């Protein structure tokens, strides 16, 4: 009697397990989707980029100073796209990093609760604004109302205008990541500094910021990665002509903006132009991946651990 009850319980459990096996398999498949996505991205970029490099030598691609794939004389030197991407990204970071860091210091160390609870939601709203809107803001406000009177230029598209809009876009990211790092610094460290006679400025700048440095550096790296991959602002506001120049008042084309230029046109599959956006995409992917990995490394290696 007892035996049969145990027997039927075991059978029931086996039946349940069999019935739930497909569910488990499905859940596992869902978890694999993210891995498959990464593998897919790498394979797709590599495959088309290899086709591209069959027609254009890697050396020509990496060292050429002319990028004219859509002209009749096609030249594939990626340097103009790279220099534009670097110039705009670093200018954007040059705006977003100091402003974001000061915002984080203020919110974490100084701001009364009332101001904190106003500024933080506003920054969240700013972070949620689509980049196409920032692009519009750059050409309808920043370029005509700030850059034109300030530098006396007539160009509609400028690298500086795009960088300023992008800088504003990145402020919330730098601010919130840095603030998280600063709030994780234990109060005892601040109290210790006060106890030996520091004032608030010294506590903030000489104690809290160094203690949160790994988080702040990681924030800067992540913001830079975001800037390198940002597409709509530069496509709209920086102009669509490749231009090897370090003059921020000129129009120039970034890597992402080139991908958009080809994507908005009618470029059939199998042409070298089509393949070229994957070669540029591969480069973009490698840059952003390295920056992200570097940020994670900084966080893991240089994190100050407190009890």
């Amino acid at each position: 009697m007892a035996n049969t009850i145990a027997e039927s319980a075991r059978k029931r459990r086996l039946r349940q397990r069999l019935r739930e096996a497909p569910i488990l398999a499905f859940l596992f498949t869902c978890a694999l989707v993210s891995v498959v996505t990464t593998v897919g991205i790498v394979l797709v970029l590599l495959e088309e980029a290899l086709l591209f490099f069959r027609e254009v030598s890697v050396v020509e691609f990496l060292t050429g100073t002319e990028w004219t794939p859509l002209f009749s004389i096609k030249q594939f030197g990626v340097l103009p796209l790279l220099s534009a991407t670097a110039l705009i990204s670093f200018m954007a970071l040059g705006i977003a990093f100091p402003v974001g860091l000061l915002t984080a210091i203020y919110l974490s160390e100084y701001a009364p609760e009332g101001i904190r609870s106003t500024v933080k939601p506003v920054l969240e709203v700013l972070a949620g604004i689509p980049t196409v809107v920032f692009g519009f803001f750059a050409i309808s406000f920043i370029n005509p109302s700030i850059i034109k009177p300030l530098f006396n230029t007539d160009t509609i598209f400028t690298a500086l205008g795009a960088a300023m809009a992008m800088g504003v876009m990145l402020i919330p990211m730098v601010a919130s990541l840095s603030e998280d790092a600063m709030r994780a610094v234990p109060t005892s460290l601040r109290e210790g500094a006060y106890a030996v006679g520091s004032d608030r400025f010294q506590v903030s700048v000489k104690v809290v910021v160094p203690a949160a440095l790994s988080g702040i550096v990681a924030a800067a790296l992540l913001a830079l990665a975001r800037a390198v991959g940002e597409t709509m602002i530069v496509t709209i506001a920086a102009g669509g002509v490749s231009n090897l120049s370090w003059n921020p008042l000129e129009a120039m084309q970034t890597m992402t903006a080139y991908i958009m230029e080809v994507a908005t046109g009618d470029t059939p599959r199998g042409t070298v132009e089509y393949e070229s956006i994957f070669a540029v995409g591969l480069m973009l992917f490698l840059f952003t991946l390295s920056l992200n990995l570097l940020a994670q490394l900084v966080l893991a290696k240089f994190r100050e651990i407190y009890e």
Partner: protein
Amino acid sequence: MIRNITISRGGKARRGHGFRRGRGAAFVALAMTASFLGVVVLAVLLITVARDGIGVLGLDFINSYPSYKPEEAGAKSALAGTLWVMAFTALFAIIAGVGAAIYLEEFARRSWITRVIEININNLAGVPSVVYGLLGLAVFVYGMGLGRSILAGALTLALLILPIIIVASREGLRSVPPSMREAAMALGATRWQAVWHQVLPAAVPTILTGFILALARAIGETAPLIVVGAFTTVLFVPTSPTDSFTVLPVQIYSWIGRPLPAFQENAAAGIVLLLTVLMMMNAVAIIVRNVYSRRSRW
């Protein structure tokens, strides 16, 4: 007067109280200005957009198709496209995202596979959205033969927001106390039954909040959809997921690119519409969070 003591260290006189106070005040002023810069820019941005767009915005704008005449152009097909794409994005992303989260949180043993999956989700969140567009173009548009369709766009966006949904869902599942699983399993439920009937319902508010915010992100995405072929003039309301499409941000971009100044007003009106939708979604997310957090059962 303790205040006026200057401490000397190594023979070098320390700077006095007046200097310290001045430096402190200057720094606070600087930091405060920086903090309000974001607020000011947001205000200027909203005013610029509203000033340019409000005159155009109206029922006609919502109810008209794009046109080469700016005064007749509207966002009807773009709005319809956004609804179609979002419906499918939501469907794909919620199933795959919550499924992955349940697996990782409730079933996975600590093994190298789970570690690979976790590192991978972290890194996917940092991949530029335009690269997702390239993936969608090669795999969905050409590889699977979906063409420049709503389905191709929705699958691309679903992959893009998947990391956000997985992270939010895991957080939600983790916040459900283990005692709930143990209680269910003590009454004879299998692990899956415990998750499905007890844990998941308790985690819904967090998951839902993350899901709405992820969708808000997807609605504003422009670049990946342009790469998979949404940059076209659509003069009809799509009736099937295999139809070609455009979405609101892509339509805005296409207006921005027109030389006629009147189109800039259309772009601004489109932006007002887009921002209104986003604000509404954020409000819903906040309401969901507040309503459920008051009803918390443990």
